Structure formats: C-alpha cells, structure tokens
C-alpha cells in the first residue's frame, strides 16, 4: 500500500514538514466502462467496493458519489456499534460486522478508532424486561456476548445514570454487550476509500446518477452528470435516496425516507465512558474522544429529504437525557444536524438482488446502518460478485415483503438502533 501509516511515517514526514504525504485516494475521471459500479460513496458503498476488489478480485470497478464521500449518514450518525439483535438473521449479520470491526484498523491501515467500551440497553417497564431478557437469552445461544444487569449493576457500570426508583420510569435493569462500542465515522469512509483506491477502484465524487440504462431485464450502464458509464452490474447503496434511484428503473421499494436528528454537546473532560441506550425513555448517549456528548434523537414521522427535522424531536430527546442524567442540565448543545434514513416496515435492511439482472440494492438500514458497515459491504460484495446472496444476507431479500417472512426487529422487542 502506498505510504503506510504509522508513528514512524509521521516522524519521517515531520522532517519534511508533512509536505510529502501522498493523496489518500486519487480523483479520477470516470472510464468508459466498469465491471461493476457502486452508486453511493458512503461507508457501505466504499466497503462494498473494497471487498469486491479484495475478496472477489474485481478491480475494474467504480464508486460514484453525487457529493463527497462519507457526507451522508456515514458522517452524521452517532457511531454506535453492537450486534445484540434478537433474530438469528440479524444477529448473524451484525455480529459478522462486529467481528470485522475488531480488526478493521489493521486491515485498512487506518485508525477507525473502534472503541469497545460496551453498549448498555436500559429497561424501564415490565415488557422492556421481558423483551431485553428474551434478546439476551437469544444472544447467548447465538454466541453473542450479552448479559442482563440488574439496577445496581447498571449503576455500577455507569454511575451517572439516575437509577432512583422515584423517577417517572425507573431503570429496572438492562443488557450489556461489552464487545460493542463506537468508532470514528469519518475514518471508516476515508479508510475504505483509501484501501479501495489502492487496489485500483475509481472513486468518482461530485458525480450524480441521472438514469439507469436497461436492455430488457438487465442493466447496461448509468447516465451521470459526468456522462454515460457502461457496466453490467450496479450496486445501489444510496441510503435515504434509494427510492430515487429505484424510480429510475420503475422499481418500488418498501422504504420511507425520514429525518433523523443527532446533536453533540460542548466537549468536556471524560464523564461517561460507555454507550447507554434507552428505548422507553428515548435517549442514547456516549462521549466522543474529543469530549463531546454524542446524543441520538428520534426520527420524524413524515418523509423528508431536507436533512432537517422538527425541534420537538430534539426537545423530546434531551428531556429524556435529563431524566436519566440530571447532571447534564447545564451542558450546552454545540451542534445539531439531521440525516435521511430509509426505513423498512420491519426495521431490517435489504441486501438483495432484484428482478432486473445486474441490479442490486443495499438499503433500508433505517437508523442503525453504521454499525453494519463492514459486514454490509462484505456481504453485498459477495452478492454482487456471485449474483447470489451469502447465507448471512439471504433472509434480507426483497421478496420477504411479498411472502411475509419479515425479519421483524421492529414489532418484536423493538429496540432502538
């Protein structure tokens, strides 16, 4: 790999005032034709390209991104990574991702700062307890590290939580996955981009897809703002804009794109060193390495592509934060932003072929896609390369909405992503 990153390369470059660092990735003009094109330069798209090149030896491929890579939900999420999902299919998918996360910095030679500081999910009513215990038992049998904590153990693991029995919805316990944690979102996109580029993948930014050319039931290429590009395989990883791409080939998806907001506080010295999520009292919080409290808010109920949500959602979230962490009342919100999340009726993703030959969709990650980035890329690459799903994403096909065989993380033990 072109100049390997390490403390030594840093020192070496210090002598030349860091003026000899090479580009992390090239900035090529699109070729006439590729063996495969990935639409969408977010984490999932870049990871897909990376694994297509690395594991399936497809080097003549491109990632086309209408803006700048990592600028969508990759750069807007709260970076929570966990795999303690209820259903076997989900557990398989997300734990596959978690296993890759554990070695990703080394695999990419790019520090993605994967920090396994644990993720805790709190229970606030009797049904929460049933649901979370159900999940914990399932996780254990699926070989996923997850344990049930009683209220005292919750308090011990994260002392700043208000576990008083007198609050409106007292903390009745929770589950903990120690291998779970957070990572540096930008680094994931940049690391995959650098890695893919090094293997010859063209990353084409500021290139918007305007149409998809079909010949009968198979794809022939894409029309873009940088002209027509020929290809036989198109992997769509456009997150919130999946339906927009689908419309180009008259495919309808079971998706709704909704605003999801998040916010950070001003940076302070370490005060919470794990990730705590609560579904009933809707609040998740962690603290970034920079010291900012990173807080995920909920989605709005309406469709919007504006990357803005309503203030009530932010207020509702902070209200919950102060219920569980009254010490944060004097902390200040530094920045607030929104993303567009594409949500499936069963709150599970689609990683699937379509009825059009050579057209593949990876979408529907809703509010929880970041954690799956490496796994999603790996499995989608497999699906594209072999024109067949991997067994780990077989259940996440598009057809489940016809058969009714949903992976209902939503209905069952709905737990916040």
């Amino acid at each position: 790999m072109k100049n390997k990153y390490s403390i030594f390369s840093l020192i070496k470059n210090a002598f030349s005032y860091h003026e000899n660092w090479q580009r992390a990735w090239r900035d090529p003009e699109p070729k006439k034709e590729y063996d495969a094109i990935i639409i969408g330069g977010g984490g999932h798209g870049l990871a897909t390209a990376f694994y297509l090149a690395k594991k399936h030896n497809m080097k003549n491929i491109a990632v086309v991104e209408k803006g700048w890579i990592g600028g969508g939900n990759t750069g807007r999420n709260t970076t929570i990574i966990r795999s303690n999902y209820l259903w076997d299919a989900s557990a398989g998918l997300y734990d596959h991702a978690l296993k890759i996360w554990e070695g990703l910095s080394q695999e990419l030679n790019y520090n993605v700062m994967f920090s396994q500081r644990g993720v805790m999910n709190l229970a606030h009513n009797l049904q929460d307890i049933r649901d979370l215990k159900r999940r914990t038992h399932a996780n254990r049998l699926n070989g996923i590290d997850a344990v049930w904590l009683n209220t005292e153990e919750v308090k011990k693991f994260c002392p700043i939580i208000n576990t008083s029995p007198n609050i409106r919805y007292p903390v009745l316990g929770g589950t903990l996955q120690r291998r779970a944690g957070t990572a540096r979102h930008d680094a994931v996109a940049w690391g995959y981009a650098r890695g893919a580029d090094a293997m010859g993948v063209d990353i084409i930014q500021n290139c918007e897809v305007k149409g998809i050319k079909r010949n009968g039931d198979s794809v022939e290429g894409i029309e873009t703002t940088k002209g027509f590009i020929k290809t036989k395989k198109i992997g769509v990883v456009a997150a919130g804009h999946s339906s927009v791409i689908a419309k180009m080939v008259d495919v309808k998806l079971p998706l709704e794109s909704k605003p999801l907001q998040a916010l950070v506080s001003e940076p302070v010295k370490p005060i919470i060193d794990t990730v705590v999520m609560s579904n009933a009292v809707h609040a998740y919080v962690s603290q970034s390495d920079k010291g900012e409290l990173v807080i995920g808010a909920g989605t709005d109920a309406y469709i919007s592509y504006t990357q803005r949500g309503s203030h009530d959602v932010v207020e509702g979230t902070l209200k919950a934060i102060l219920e569980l962490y009254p010490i944060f009342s004097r902390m200040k919100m530094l920045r607030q932003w929104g993303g567009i999340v594409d949500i499936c009726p069963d709150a599970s993703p689609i990683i699937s072929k379509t009825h059009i030959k050579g057209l593949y969709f990876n979408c529907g990650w809703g509010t929880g896609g970041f954690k799956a980035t490496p796994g999603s890329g790996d499995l989608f690459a497999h699906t594209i390369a072999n024109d067949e799903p991997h067994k780990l994403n077989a259940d996440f096909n598009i057809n489940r909405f016809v058969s009714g065989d949903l992976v209902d993380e939503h209905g069952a033990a709905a737990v916040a992503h």
Partner: protein
Amino acid sequence: MSEKLRITNNKFIDQTSRISFKFDGKKLYGFKGDTLASALLANNIHLVGRSFKYHRPRGIMTCGSEEPNAIVQVGNDPSMTEPNTRATEIELYEGLEASSQNCWPSVNFDIGAVNNFFSPILPAAFYYKTFMWPGNFWKVYEYFIRKSAGLGKSPTKPDGDIYDHKYLHCDVLVIGGGISGIMAAKTAAKNNLDTVLIEDKNTLGGTTLFQQNECFKINNSYSNEWLMKEIQSLSSLKNLKIKTRTSLAAYHSYNYLLARENLTDHLDIDQKKGKIRQRLWKIRAKKVIIATGAMERPLIFNNNDRPGIILSSSIKKYIDFYGVKCGQKISLFTNNDSAYETAISLSKSGVNVNSVVDIRDKTNSLIVKQAEKLGIKIHWKSTVVNTNGYKKINSIEIIKLSDDGTSVIGKKINEKCDCLGISGGWTPRVHLFTQSGGKLKFRDKDNIFIPDKSDLDQLSIGSCNGDFELDDVINNSVNSTNKFLNVNNNDYENLKIISSKEINKKNIWLLPSDKPLGKTKPFLDFQNDSTAKDIKLALREGFKSIEHVKRYTTTGMATDQGKLSNMHALGIIAETAGVKMGELGTTTFRPPYTPLTFGAIVGRNVGEFFDIKRRTPIHEWHVENKAKFENVGQWKRAWYYPKGNENMHEAVQRESKAARDSVGILDASTLGKIDIQGTDASEFLNRVYTNAWSKLEIGKCRYGLMLNEDGMVYDDGVTTRLGENHYIMTTTTGGAANVLSKLEDYLQTEWPELDVYLTSVTDHYATVSVCGPNSKKIVSKVIPNLDLSDDKFKHMSFKNALINNIKCRVMRISFTGELSYEINVQSSYGKSVWEKCFEAGKEFGITPYGTETMHLLRAEKGFIITGQDTDGTMTPVDLQMDWIISKKKYDFIGKRSLYRSDTIREDRKQLVGLLTDDPKEVLEEGAQIVADINKKPVEMLGHVTSSYFSPNLNKSIALAVVKNGKKLKGKKMLVPMKNKNINVTITDTIFLDKENRRLNA
C-alpha cells in the same frame, strides 16, 4: 485592579460600584457593567486558557460570542458549575468565580504544553495514521487521549436551577439591537405591527452606541448621540416588545425560531435563587428581520495566537465602552480602514499607539487622514511576519510586502508592544440566514458571503447584509425595511450623514512570511489549534471539499463553530486549489448559533413534569391501601397490594388464591372505551374485527381480535351491543389511543360511506371488576334490584342498573375464568362504588388485586395479553385462535395477509403452554426454548412469553410461542439458562377449568 488600565470618563460602566470576583482562585475587582473579560483585562490579565491540542497559552481575543480562547469554567459547586463559558459574554457579578480550563496544574504552568514541543509530529488528523499497533492497544491510547481532550468539566450533581418555555407569536421579529435593527423595529411598531426586538447584549445600540468620531455623524451630531435619542424614542411604542440578554439560538423553517433569554446569569449569587435561570422563547413570526451585524476577521500569520493579540474592533470596544486599555503600547495590524477607528479611540484616551501596520498601499480615506492628523505612525504595504513573547506578546516583526503581496522584501523591523490589534476585514453574520435555509452569494470586492435567496418571509439588513458604512447601513436598511413591511415610514428620509468611505481594499488570506510555511504556526482555528499548514496538508492528501477539510483538520468544529476561522479556511482552500470562492461554496452553519444549555431546551419538562401521570378515579383508594403501582403507558395502575412485609410474590400468590377461592376486586378503569353509534355500527365491527358481529344480540358481549393489515394481532377486547345501532368497545389500556385513531382513519379515509360515530369515553367510566365464586353475592348486595340469576343474566351479557339512583352498566364478562362482573359507572362515583363493593365483600374476605395477579389468573386460563404473548409477528392462527376468524366474512382488516405464503406455513411459531418437569421451577419470561442444545448452531424454537407460579394449581405454568408448537403437544423441550437447562413439556394453553365450570359457579 491596576487603575492605570481604566479610563475614568466612561458612561457605560458604573465605576462607583465595585464588584469583587475570583479568577483561578485569585480575588480581583471590576465594575458593574464589566464582562469577565473586560475586568480581567483591566487587571492586566490576558492569559486565560490553553489551546485544545498543543496547550499553547491563549488570551482574550474578542469581546463577543465569537471568542475562541477565553473559555472558562464558571463556579465550582458540583451542581451549579458551568463549563466552556465565554469570558467575553459573562456579565460580572458579585461573587463570580471562574477558572481556566484544559490546563494542569495551572494555566501558568501547564504540563500539557509538552504537546507544543511534539507538535511537529502531530499534524492534522495524525491520529488516523497511528495508534494502530499493537492490534488491541487502541483502548490504552484512547484512555490517555480522552483524558487530555475535553475542555471544562461537567457538573456532577443535578442542576439547582429551573428553566422554562414560552410561545410567542408576532408580526415582525427583529433580531439584533444595533442601529439598523433599532430603526427597523421602530418602523414596524409605528406601523401597528406587533413587533419584537431581541438583542443578546444587555443594552441596545451595538457598536454605534460608542461610536463618537468626527468621521461618523448624523444630522450634525455624533452617530452615537443620534442613536441614543432613537433608543429613547422606542419606549413610547406600545406594539414593541424589547428583549435584551436574549440570543437567537435557531432559525427553523416556517419562521419558527428559538431564542434563549438569560434571566439570572448576571445577578449576584444571592439574588439568583428561586428564579428561572433561562427561558426559551418559541417564536412564530410572520416576518423576520435579521440585523445581526458583522464579525471582524483576524489575520493569518506566524504566531498570531499569543495572549495580547486581540481583534482591533474589540480593543476599541474595551476602551470606548468598558473604559479598559488592553495595553499601554499597542500596535495595530490591518488590511482595512476600521483599525484606524481603534487607533483614534486609543490615542484620544491617551493610549500610546506604536503604529498601524497596513498591508495596503497608502490610502486617503477620511478616517486615515484623521489618524495621520493625530500623528499615528503607519507602515503602508507591510505585514507582520512574527510575534514574540510566550505568555504575553512583547514585540512584533514587520516587513514590507512585495507588489503582488505573495512575498516579503527588505529588512525586518522589530517593534515592542504589549498588545497587538488585528483586523482582517469583516464577515457578515449570515449564520441565521443560512440556518433558515437561505442561499448565500459571494461578493468578490470584499470577499464576503451575503444573503441571496430565501423561501421564507425574511430580510437581512445592515452589516449582516454586507453594508459596512454608516450611510449605506442607514439608507439601505430604511429602504429595504419599508419595502419588506410594505409601509412608508419617512422618519429617516433625508438624514444628513457623514461617513468615512473605504477607498482601497486588499485581502491576503495567508500572509507571506520570511520563513518557509513549514516552520511557521499561522493559526486559523485558535481553539482547535488548526493552522494554515493543516489546511494545505488536507488538500495535499486529497480532501478537497470544504466539509472534508473541516472534518479532517477539525477547523471550525470548536465551541465557537468556526466563527473566526471559516472564511480563512475557505480562502486558503480556494487559493491553494485555484478555484473561485464563490464556486467553492461554504459550510453549513448548524443550529444553535451559540451553544444552548440542555436545561433551556427542556424547560420545565423535567422531574415531575417529565411525563404525564394518568390516574384512575379510584387511584386514591389504592394509595391509601398501600398498593405498589405499575406504569402502563402513561397510566399508574395498582400492581399488587402487599400486606405487612409481604414481597411481590407472596402478595400475588395470596391475591390470586383469594380471587379463585372467594372473591377479588380489580380496578379496570384504564381499559380504553369507545362509544360506537350509527346505522352501520355492526358492519363497521365486521370490518375491523376478525369475527362476525351482525348477529350479536342486543345486551350481549363478545370478545374481538383486531389485526393490522399485515395480519398480525394488534389489539383485543370485549365489545357490548347496547342497542340496535349502539356498541361500546373496550381496548387494551396501552392500545386505547392508537386503536381509536386507527379506527377513525379507516372511517374517514377508507369507508366514509359508513354511518358510524366513535366517541372516546375511557375517562367517563370507572370500571370495578368483582371476580370469584362469591362475586355474585357481592353484586347482589350492591345492586339489590338486579336479577343476577344465570338464566336472566348470562355470561357475556350486560344489564343497565342503578346504584342509589346512579346509572351504571354491569357486564358479566371474565378475564380470569372466574364468575365475574364489571360495574361501569361514571367516574365521579367510581371510588364510591368500589368502596361499596369492598364493604359488601368484607364478610367474604374480598381481596383487592392488581395487574400482576390479573396476569397470573388469565394465564391459568390461557388468555393472551396482546403485547406480551404477541409481539407483532403473531397471527390469530399462530395463537391457536382459528375459531375467532370468521370464514363467512368476505373481508376484514388484515384478512388477506393471513393467506400469504409465509403466514399459511404450518410450522410457524405458535402459542402453547409449558409445564416444567419440576413443578416448583418457574421459568424466566423471555427465556428461549430449544429441542437439542448440543446441535450447533443452537436452533431456537421459540421463547417463554408468560410465566408464573400458580397457587391454585400449585405448580409452575407458562405460555410460550414455539415453532410448529401445535403439533408438538406432549413433547419434551429444554429451556437453556446460563447455568442450567430446564426440562419442560409442551402442553395445551389452558391450565385450569377447561370446561369453564367456574364461569357459572
């Protein structure tokens, strides 16, 4: 305080009232009207903090919300301390205690400063390139990184202050109380528009308020004197509401704005108590006028971050407004005229101005001439290439600029100084405009972004709109305001305005140096320590878009959100990449404009007001009788009634037994109740429930299951036919609201042709459920004239009755399998009826029971609870309730979904009963069920949904969903726990009284 730094002829600071405060533990003095910053400067304290990354000494740099350096911790009470507060915005009060952040042991001697020594190997984003070895070691590196990062400290105890909200609807909202804002507000209010003017400072007037200079006059009086009169005239306007100390935090679409009003932060400690600290105004304005002014830019050159380097306009405010000299020997460095205003103010106040270093060729504007007249030395076409002094600047190095401005020529002049004022021109505060979705355009002549297009009914005026000179500000503001408000206010016509005009403009984003860039430290983002070098590094590594550069170098990500750094970052990117700034675009400014306390955002919705508590009409009785309560949705429901020191299990066992052996009483008031009337009521029920309703006789009750269109069980309950076209439906407690709006949805959108009316009566009725073999005796005592004989009053039927002349409805229905009656009476009599039943039941040892016992009793009978035994993936068939699906009916909500390839599978997960081989062993709800624990991966067949120890059967019972369960009756299964595997057998779901004898006991 060192008096020599205070001037006495000052009208804004009350120098008679001395205030004592503490900074880093040292007791100091200031005056009423000071900010912490002005008071510190008056005490000759510049060094107030350390930078984020290199821990370089940093001093006060501005006088406002854009301050990047003077960020302090206020207070040290663990519940009241506040991190990251800008000293330039803190109004001084008696007892204020503040301290420096991000330094240890002290701001003067900071261990972290070693980072500065390592800075050569810590370029932008170095952390992405290292800390990767050994593989699992990031944890360790991260620990130290986290410790050294972060600025102030979070409080560690709950906030002692309270906050609240207020909604405000107005015709015109004017943001910013400077000269243009004041004129606009006056214009609006005078034209009978309901107007609100907000200003984040404690006084109106902006910078004009202290602009007493020959070069700026209106109608022959100084601009500040003229403005004073304007401000006074506002008080007479009844349509005008003025809010000072109120800063606009967020500007959302549809002219929805949030403003934070500071109510007590400026008060002396002892006066703060018991008052609201901050109020968040939620404003809906028909029209919005933005008059937020402009920010002065710094200049980017080597070591431009030393304490004592201050924005030139801030130096002017400190001397003219606060009466504080930022130094005794001040040098100024500028690329525009405004620094000369500072020079003039300083020399008028007797501060010795070394010189003005101006990168421009000689210019002759009014203000420059005046400066020259005062004998101020000017280095034309020169730049500062370096500054010296570690904890405070002590000299600057000046060199001539080449003609093209890209390099320096000639020999260095060294000039001693104790303060350097820098002015890089002005940046309009367009943040709010862009927050609201407005698009900007770039103006090349002075390198600024100004408002262009917006979808909202809004207007930007004054310097935030790119008007910097007095005459432009006044004339353009007046015209556009009149047009915008569609009024004709001639107050400001033909004013005689004198204003110095800037003739000569020149801008260099990164000033040339006599050293190679690599050897210099030209800071852009002072708080985050990012330099021009970092920007260039990012570009070199292929990070082209401004957002990439920003994230890679963290420029503009600090607590000042890049107010000072963004423009230079853009400029340097454009220069280096060779693109026009206009095309480069700008980064998105996100709310809030200045950091906003969580407390203010949440307001009073904390503690007891965090969420609503719904109470039943009988709530008091439960409290008096020591009930423990369970949260069900927003309801407080009696959970169980412990006697003496019974634990829950003991109480529930006792209650359950009593209900079966004699009689129990339950408050069922929380169940949703919907009054259904209309000629199509029966047809409507046919469509929303799975079973048939048309043939239900008047006076009879029936249980119904409601599905979603996806075929999954959604809600259930008993519905009673009160009349030909009149039903009352009950829903689950949690489902009530959703069911009603779902039904309304179908009525209004899918079946408008149906003549049906739905009215919620949930709160109108209290429901007292008397249950058990003796229930009949009790009801007959309470309602003597009601014939309860089985033939007259059958199971699943209802009767109207009177209790002491009060109407009530008695339903004979059972959720426990016992003979039981539900008395529905209007809520105001609920408690009384309950007490009457209780009284009547005493002789039978009537036992009040809560939700837990109810759940146990119904489980003995195999009755489901939607949401517990179902989870949004269960069809009625899965529940083995095929009997409730009408085969005759053509359609009902969700029917079609029951016939999809997956939903018709025989081996879906189905509801079954479970018995543990050891009858004493109670299963854990949520536990998984497997057939073979040794086969890997373990196949999970289902899970336990409900589990109890039944005192009536004297054994453990459970309900579960199991794959293909219907066919597995009698089969052995395992419930694997962490430490053991529990042997269970799949059974029927009904554990007690399959023949329903007890219903007619």
